[in-house]
């Protein structure tokens, strides 16, 4: 697997990587600000992570260890393909273990395992503009960001409370970065918002179709917007993970049959597998193959 002669290292040409790195640096310098960049065609459709892949390709080096997750899972199509892609075009080591990865490209989750200053989290972002569905004009939203006119963002939260009695936004929950820019944290569940706050890891966001890159540098204030009398809250779950009995983690509902049977399991597969390997048991955990976990190990 050392034959990468047909591609430049990490697929993109060096000029493109340089352009993207400049956008990333600008993004880091102005936390939460959406930097336009000349997004390239990637060998995958828009919406599959072209932004995240370009960011990863621009920052990855031969010594990096890459982990890719899709909705928390290491073993879904998107995660497996992107991992295989970088193995092929950059010949880097890949892993599913959160702690040993240096770059984690993610679609819509932040790993449960705390990140460190030695790690970079790369988000795939479909729509970077938090104001988009309230104000369709890009010229106007840019002006609103420039002039810090964010009243409209609260109009959305107001609507939620008026309609549902509480803030019903559960994902892509808007945050204010370092007291200045309002940012869309990509469609991560709001459960993950507190993890962005003063995170030691660098967080980079790439939106390929919308041609925007933005960043949250390490140890940056990330505050979820709310009302004084309706403060920000994360989702809570009534029951622990059915496989590893973990509490205070984000759970996915898995349908088991056609008769309404379902269970809640960790959305972070790596976290779940590690806990089961350590001997934790949920009430639906199978008795066999205890130590190895039930899911296929990712490639």
């Amino acid at each position: 697997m050392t034959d990468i002669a047909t591609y430049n290292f990490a697929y993109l040409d060096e000029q493109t990587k340089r352009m993207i790195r400049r956008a990333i640096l600008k993004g880091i310098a102005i936390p939460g600000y959406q930097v336009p960049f000349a997004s390239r065609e990637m060998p995958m459709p828009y919406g599959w992570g072209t932004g995240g892949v370009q960011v990863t390709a621009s920052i990855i080096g031969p010594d990096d260890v890459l982990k890719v997750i899709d909705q928390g899972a290491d073993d879904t199509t998107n995660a497996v393909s992107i991992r295989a892609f970088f193995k092929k075009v950059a010949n880097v080591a890949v892993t599913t273990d959160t702690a040993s990865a240096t770059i984690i490209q993610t679609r819509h989750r932040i790993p449960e395992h705390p990140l460190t200053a030695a790690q970079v989290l790369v988000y795939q972002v479909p729509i970077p503009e938090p104001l988009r569905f309230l104000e369709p004009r890009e010229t106007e939203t840019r002006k609103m960001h420039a002039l810090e006119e964010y009243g409209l963002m609260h109009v959305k939260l107001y609507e939620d409370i008026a309609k549902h009695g509480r803030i019903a936004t559960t994902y892509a929950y808007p945050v204010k970065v370092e007291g200045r820019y309002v940012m869309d944290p990509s469609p991560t569940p709001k459960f993950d918002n507190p993890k962005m706050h003063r995170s030691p890891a660098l967080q980079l966001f790439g939106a390929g179709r919308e041609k925007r890159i933005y960043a949250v540098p390490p140890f940056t204030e990330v505050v979820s917007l709310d009302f004084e009398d309706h403060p920000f809250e994360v989702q809570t779950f009534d029951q622990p993970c059915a496989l590893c009995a973990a509490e205070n983690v984000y759970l996915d509902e898995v349908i088991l049959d056609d008769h309404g049977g379902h269970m809640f399991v960790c959305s972070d597969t790596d976290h779940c597998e590690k806990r089961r390997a350590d001997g934790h048991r949920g009430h639906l955990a199978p008795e066999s193959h205890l130590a190895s976990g039930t899911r296929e190990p990712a490639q």
Partner: protein
Amino acid sequence: MTDEPLLRVAALSKFYGSRVGCDNVSFDLWPGEVLAVVGESGSGKTTLLNCLSTRLLPSSGTASYRMRDGQFRELYRMSEAERRFLMRTDWGFVHQNPADGLRMTVSAGANVGERLMAVGDRHYGRIRATAVDWLSRVEIDEDRIDDEPRAFSGGMRQRLQIARNLVTGPRLVFMDEPTGGLDVSVQARLLDLLRGLVTDLGLAAIVVTHDLAVARLLSQRMMVMKDGRVVESGLTDRVLDDPRAPYTQLLVSSILQV
């Protein structure tokens, strides 16, 4: 009352290439005063209004506004951020078509509350209570607060637009044909409401209209425009009862008598 005007306009002109939008318009507006700008279509009324409300930049001339601290500020020298702040706090703009001034896809309550949230109110209960209060002041039932303006009639939309503009307690309101497109009974109620609000709140207003009856009811002073120029100005009753300029005479005599 004070002896200083709220707005001073001097030699304001706007040209669209070689065409004249409005030409050499000067006037002062005092606090609590309602000024009507009348004239036929294409006479430059709306251009003038858009220039004054800084939605358009004039080709030449100045307009100074007395801020809440008593200092006059030259409108066209302010930064865009300051102008937009003024626009959503101390000013209001009532559009002829309510859809231009409302957010049609969010509820009535949020429409009224938006300005409060824009100036930093972060207490849902308080915002909602203010919205309820304002809806009742413009005669919209409290139980319509969570409906979208799409579900409102034309007259209700217009009243909602007025509530949305007045919620921050502005001192100056611009109105562009506020009763245009409404049937006469709805017009009458809206005018009644506007008159009440303007008096209660001591608002200054600049009302652009082609309807002389609206001008007569709402305004104390009046400017008649033709081809971008002011042909006559004075107290509303004087202008309408004793028009001097030939064009004003024509205009007044063109009113349909029922």
